């Protein structure tokens, strides 16, 4: 099943919506109205690039930094904000909060805040795809830190041996909470481990949504053709702290500056302007649409009631 090419203007708008969503959350958190949350600021490209390459029957598993993946999949920012605020209209009725949002109707099976949980369950979702002869593949987003949990090896190895249709997407953002990636592994890339396990892989510029989209299309074609898993490693950077609040005092200033210059949104926008494909009015129009969307979303979430006390013990057992 082929995907129409990714319109760079649309990609830009999606990335800007994700950024605006996170900035809304940061603001809400600052005003004590949202619990600690991990933002995807700086990592919008893998989300938009990869998710745009998926079809409706593909399934997604992701980690604690999942807002971009959800929004790129078309999730309602209002229901997402409501969930973060623990409101009844959140995707999980307020029981998840920001860190485990799943949305069955969008094919988002899991946001795991147990680092590695997404890797552990992805094989099962891939297994059900093949056992039930479903056409969909599974996209599993995880971080470079998750790649140091043994589940990474276990998941890729089982997917390789059982030929499971899984697109593994590692967002190598150089940080694992308060630890720099270089403190946790000798290699600069995890792709070598995938190769050693017999899983094909590609390392991609994780701050370029178009490059991510193309790489994802190629990988997904290979998965559909061979039935085998594939690993995409997106080289990107966590521009904000691990969670809110985090002053990033432990982050090397030059490294941060280097990556700020490569902000995926500014980069794509500059390129499109340079190529004369994005006018001042064009960008203004996008900005106002995004602003309107987030204002409506915030209003919706604010208006949503908290779940009633009975919700404390519902949904525990079938």
């Amino acid at each position, binding site marked *: 099943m082929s995907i129409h090419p990714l319109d760079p203007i649309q990609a830009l708008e999606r990335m800007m919506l994700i950024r605006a969503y996170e900035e809304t959350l940061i603001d809400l958190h600052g005003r004590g109205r949202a619990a600690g949350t991990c933002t995807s600021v700086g990592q919008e490209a893998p989300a938009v690039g990869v998710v745009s390459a998926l079809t409706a029957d593909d*399934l997604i*598993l992701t980690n604690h930094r999942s807002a971009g993946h959800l929004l790129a999949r078309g999730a309602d920012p209002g229901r997402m904000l409501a969930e973060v605020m623990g409101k009844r209209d*959140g*995707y*999980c*009725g*307020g*029981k*998840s909060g920001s860190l*485990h949002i*799943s*949305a*069955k109707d969008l094919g988002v*099976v*899991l946001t*795991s805040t*147990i680092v*590695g*949980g997404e*890797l*552990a*369950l*992805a*094989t*099962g*979702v*891939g*297994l*059900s*795809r093949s*056992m*039930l002869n479903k056409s969909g593949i599974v996209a599993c987003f995880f971080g470079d830190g998750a790649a140091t949990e*043994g*589940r990474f090896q*276990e*998941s890729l*190895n*089982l997917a390789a*041996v*059982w030929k499971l249709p899984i697109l593994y997407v590692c967002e190598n953002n150089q940080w694992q909470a308060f630890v720099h990636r270089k403190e946790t592994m000798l290699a600069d890339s995890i792709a070598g481990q995938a190769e050693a396990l017999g899983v094909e892989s590609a390392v991609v510029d994780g701050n370029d949504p178009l490059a991510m989209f193309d790489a994802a299309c190629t990988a997904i074609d290979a998965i559909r053709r061979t039935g085998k898993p594939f690993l995409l490693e997106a080289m990107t950077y966590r521009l904000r702290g691990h969670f809110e609040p985090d002053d990033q005092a432990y982050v090397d200033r030059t490294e941060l500056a280097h990556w700020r210059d490569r902000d995926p949104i500014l980069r794509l926008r500059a390129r499109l302007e340079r190529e004369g494909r994005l006018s001042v009015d064009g960008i203004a129009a996008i900005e106002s649409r995004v602003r309107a969307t987030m204002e409506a979303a915030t209003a919706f979430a604010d208006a949503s009631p908290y779940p009633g006390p009975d919700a404390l013990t*519902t*949904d*525990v*057992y*079938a």
Partner: protein
Amino acid sequence: MTTMTTMTVNDAISAALAEEMQRDPTVMIFGEGVATKRRDLLERFGAARVRNTPLAEGIIAGTAAGAAATGLRPVVDLLFAPFLCYAMDEIVNSAGKLRYISGGQFSFPMVVLAMTGAGWGVGAQHNHNVESWFVHSPGLKIVMPSTPADFKGLMKAAIRDDNPVLVFADIALGYSAGEVPEDADAIPLGKAAVRRVGRDVTLVSYAKTVGTCMAAADTLAAADIDAEVIDLRSLKPLDEAAILRSVAKTGRLVVVHEASRLCGVGAEIAALVAEKAFASLRAPVLRLTGPDAPAPASFPLEQAFVPQADAIVAAVRSQMGG
């Protein structure tokens, strides 16, 4: 009238697996050596539904959880209870919690099978009765039967249940035989069985120590002490009504299990009765359990680890004030 066949506990588990796989094409089983050891299932249902796995309990359980959330009903054999330690995250944090966390969007119909208990003499890394960990954890169900018929019926119920169910098999019972109804259907989870009706004292147990309680009851009967023996079968849901009904009648309770004492299932039952049957209690509630120690390999020590019938008799006599 239902005809009976005699089979062992291991055969009863196999029979339940075969019947449920026959009944429902989404049921499958995998684990380390499963396809090798269950050739019959492999030949009957094929290599897609009966699989060997790499040696990695975490991904085995995680794969089961992911498959269960998206349309399959996996059964995983994790071999021995201590090996579940490698799969705790997938069982507790994922399978047990994600229905709730997702606000009920996803279900986790899966079964985790494991052996435990004294009998093989290979020590504490194969033998550790950890069932109470899972009773304490939300979203899970736990069964630990004592007869072939219950193993078959409860295994079938576990596979059909829409929640994650852990089935613990007491290794000492594996080759013990018993009658199983030909047309046995699922036995509902959460229902205890009264193995012996009595009026003087209630003995509550599960797995191999149910037999120990029956032996103690015979000895007590000879001394005109009439013991009621309750086999819990399911540890979660726990059949509180059956326990309270019996204690209301007898006024005395002894809980017996091989798992160690602190925060074990016996503690829960004693606490339940101390709250809800307080008025009918006529003697201290006693627990006979394994010691707070790892399981030793040495044969005589391993035997000594398990509560014995004479200790049960002595406990009851002390309650009867004799």
